[in-house]
């Protein structure tokens, strides 16, 4: 049975993306007498290139066969548990981006930093909480003051 390796997943994802973008490129206005090459030519050249390279990666991967992985294959729950820090941080950053316009820079950033430190440092000792709250408490207003008064940039 064919296994979905990193290279195969990459090649298939890239070919899918190139296919969607090639279809979408049909909406780009066609060439005119004063624009003989049109606006679609350059991206289409690139899309063909991306597709061709992805196909080569796929063929190479199929010819080589699936390498035995150095790390053990994990079930989905095991994979989630193994990558919980990275996934959690991505999730926190997404929430941060979503909350920035709603609650403003200070509350959103403070929330993001406290939760991110808790995720990465842990919350099992008093020392970790002190580091967490001290760094968050100093950094958030400091960056605000630098940007607002030093650089004249209004943060949300």
């Amino acid at each position, binding site marked *: 049975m064919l296994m979905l390796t990193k290279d195969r997943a990459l090649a298939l994802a890239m070919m899918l993306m190139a296919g969607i973008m090639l279809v*979408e490129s049909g909406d*780009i206005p066609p060439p005119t007498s004063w624009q003989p090459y049109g*606006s679609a030519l350059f991206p289409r050249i690139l899309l063909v290139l*991306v597709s061709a390279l992805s196909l080569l990666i796929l063929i190479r991967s199929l010819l080589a066969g699936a390498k035995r992985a150095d790390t053990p294959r994990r079930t989905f729950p095991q994979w989630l548990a193994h990558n919980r820090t*990275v996934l959690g941080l991505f999730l926190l950053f997404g929430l941060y981006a979503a909350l920035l316009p709603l609650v403003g820079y200070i509350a959103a950033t403070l929330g993001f*930093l406290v939760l991110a*430190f808790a995720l990465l440092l842990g919350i099992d000792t008093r020392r970790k909480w002190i580091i967490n709250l001290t760094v968050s408490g100093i950094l958030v207003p400091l960056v605000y003051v*630098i*940007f607002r008064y030093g650089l004249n*940039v209004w943060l949300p």
Partner: protein
Amino acid sequence: MADFFLQALGQVGSPMVLALITIGVLFGIIGGCIPGFTVTMAILVVFPFTFAMDPVSGVSLMVGVFVGGYSGGLVSGIMLGIPGTPSSITTVYDGYPMAQKGEPGRALGIGVAASFIGTLISVAVLVFFGPLIASYSMKFRPWEITSLIVFALTLVAGLSNGAMLKGLLAAALGLLITTVGYDRNSNLRFDFDLPVLGSGFEILPVMIGIFAFSQLMGNLEKLRDDKSEIKDVNTNVAIPYRQILVDMSRQKINTLRSSLIGSLVGALPGTGGTVANFISYDQAKKMSRHPEKFGTGTPDGIVASEASNSAVAGGAFVPTLALGIPGDLPMAIMMGVLILHGITPGPLMFEQNPVLVGAIYASLLIGAVVMVLCQLLLVRWFAKISLIPQQVLVPVVLMLCAVGAFALNNNLFDVWVLFIFGILGYLLWKAEVPLTPLILGVVLGDNMERQLFRALELDSSWLTFLTRPLSALFLALAVVSLLFSLYQNRKIRLHALETKGE
């Protein structure tokens, strides 16, 4: 040019700009000495602070980070045995053993002195070759510029650690990202009926997202898999100045050779400090009368490593300023910063913004002096800072990236761009796709499309790319670089098979 340089020196010499260079150097050293942080990350964190500055102040601050960053890696390399940046790997080979023998101050002093001389020599190379190449490249027409960009991208893709196909794919993907939104003829492309995509993606949030997320998440993954204990470090270091003067006086040829190697390698696309580091160390070992002493704590090894990686700073500016083509990742980001300040790097910069070019020279020189003073006076503090854990750094850097992306246009969409490209960068990194060609593609995409169509509007035949000698030469070099890369990959594969067979 001398008049402009003096004018620039006057501007850079103002107390405000001097303070900015000092802050930049300090931050660069701190960024460089924290293992896994890298020069590029230091530049990314500092760039939002340049938004509200005039170009000379902004560029001076960034140059300070650049100079400090390339020298900062030696602190953790010598004190902890862990290179702060990839460009200081070979510093560890002799710096750490020397420190273990009870001479950490000597190792640090030699490293700092070599870094200083390396930076000065690279500035001389930049001052001499920059205008020369720029004036020659003024003759380049759209065909030559397009072919030169193709060559730069293929060279960088080909040098991607045995992953040529993925490197090329990344470069094409980078170019493709720049086609989203209104084009030069005001035609809308790939907006997917989302009005926010009409103006396309800003270069900087894309670059930061791709690089910062992959690097920071990668650091966290390494931390998860690395169970080794944190080293205890003795930060009571005294620099034996007289001994260092004696050591450096015996290293004149080595310093000069290593600095020139660093400058040359820095000027080549896709190479940077890491390559310079290894070539220079290897050459120093081959030329030495005592090659057997390399790796045991000899000053020759530290000088070769530090002079070359610091010389990359000036060398890397040569193609960026003279041709508008960045040689490596930090330079690609530096180019993004220049564009942000309304300056287009390239041969015209020497005519249109001579004072700014002079300011870059002056900032490099002043940055080198500030770097030596900071390193010698504050080395014990840098050694302590290098112990800041990644668990504290990662959220702080992510937060600064988000604030920086927002501050670019006061637009929250840029924070989403950062996040989405962060996910894309991380996934591509997991799939072992090199990210440098992708970022170079993003930086060069607009210019490549503009030059390509200007060429076709002047002469509709594609064959002209092959009939103009210089354009044909660049395309031929692009093909040669790919063939060489294929040959190298094959050699590596065969070697791996042989090793496995044994």
